[in-house]
């Protein structure tokens, strides 16, 4: 495209961008709840906009806005889907379909489960035993994360997730011979996203870096959390 046309296109896009920003009010910073700890991510204050995480120091004068999410965790769930998003990873000259899934798994001892199976307990008794054990050991759990970028399946490790599950940061482990890595923990990238609830839609925005390989590059992440997971997302979200 020759230069005059490109200039006109850029001016048009800029005007469109500013119009959209004014309409949506994205320029208003939203801060985390004052009582919310920074957590392992250190996300005490975040700019809500295009998913670009701002330095805390840059926004210290912005007025606090009431938090819109309420954590209502159910400690009894054995398997919980914390995040299940589908969207795009956008780079300079390419874009790929992106899927991110975060599970929260209660750590049960398989030997305990097999003992319950051997004892011919009913399903109700088994559930009661598991819930009872859960109360005793205070419910140890772990996070498992998976990501599909284009055609490659990755695992997410070192998952840092804020208590309200809106801020995610994790290392990306590269695929291995068409299967998941089995003991191979070579870090292939890094992902960092923030999920916000906007008029009925949960949007995850952030950054993804893949260090090498077919999908190597830096991407912007834009994805929508699946609606059915909203019921289990532990957030009482405001309705439009």
């Amino acid at each position, binding site marked *: 495209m020759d230069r005059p046309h490109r200039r006109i296109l850029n001016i048009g896009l800029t005007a469109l961008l500013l119009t959209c920003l004014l309409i*949506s009010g994205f320029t208003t910073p939203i801060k985390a709840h004052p009582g919310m700890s920074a957590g392992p991510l250190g996300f005490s204050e975040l700019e809500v906009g295009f998913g670009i995480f701002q330095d805390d120091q840059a926004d210290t004068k912005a007025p606090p806005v009431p938090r819109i999410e309420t954590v209502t965790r159910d400690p009894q*769930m054995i*398997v919980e889907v914390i995040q299940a998003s589908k969207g795009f990873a956008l780079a300079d000259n390419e874009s790929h379909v992106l899927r991110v899934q975060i599970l929260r798994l209660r750590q049960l001892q398989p030997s305990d*489960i097999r003992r319950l199976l051997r004892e011919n307990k009913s*399903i109700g008794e088994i559930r009661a035993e598991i819930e009872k054990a859960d109360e005793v050991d205070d419910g140890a759990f772990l996070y498992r994360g998976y990501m599909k970028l284009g055609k490659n399946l990755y695992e997410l490790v070192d998952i840092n997730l804020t208590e309200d599950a809106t801020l995610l940061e994790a290392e990306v482990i590269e695929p291995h011979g068409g299967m998941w890595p089995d003991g191979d923990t070579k870090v292939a990238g890094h992902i960092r996203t923030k999920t916000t609830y*906007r*008029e009925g839609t949960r949007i995850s925005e952030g950054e993804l870096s893949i260090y090498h390989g077919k999908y190597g590059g*830096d991407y*912007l992440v834009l994805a929508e959390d*699946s609606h059915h997971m909203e019921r289990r997302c532990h957030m009482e979200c405001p309705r439009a």
Partner: protein
Amino acid sequence: MIKIRLSHLAIITIVLVLAPAISSGSESEEADAKVQELRGLALEVYLSVEGNALVIGYIESEDLEYLSFLEQSDYLYEDGELYALTDCLVFSGEDCQRLELVVSTQWDEYYVTFYLPHEIKLDRVDLSENLEYRILEQDDSILVEVLGYDAKEPSVEIFYDYGQ
């Protein structure tokens, strides 16, 4: 540092502005939108030496019908969480055992982990299209972790025998 192109910003902005506008329509529009919800399955299967299994996991209530093994199993379901006790997953062959989990319909997200007794000798794992797996050893179990996206009629077959 990520370079952000103006065109990308414009696309993102348009999507973010239009998506809520589209989703905040009438009740009928909301009903239509629900059709596009992602269908997800997340299960853990604990297998005993005797061949029965405890299945625990997350599934939406309207999707329970796609787990055919539940028809011959005892199960409890409450608020998305399934507990099922079944002996319908293991089939005995002449020279090996086969653990089979077949689920109907298409799943946007599929995650199942099988916790197999460490006494077994794993032969092979057969999967349907769009599923991938890995094998891990953990304490007293062999884990077969299966994951997939956009999996249609996903099936997992694990062939094993009891080692000497």
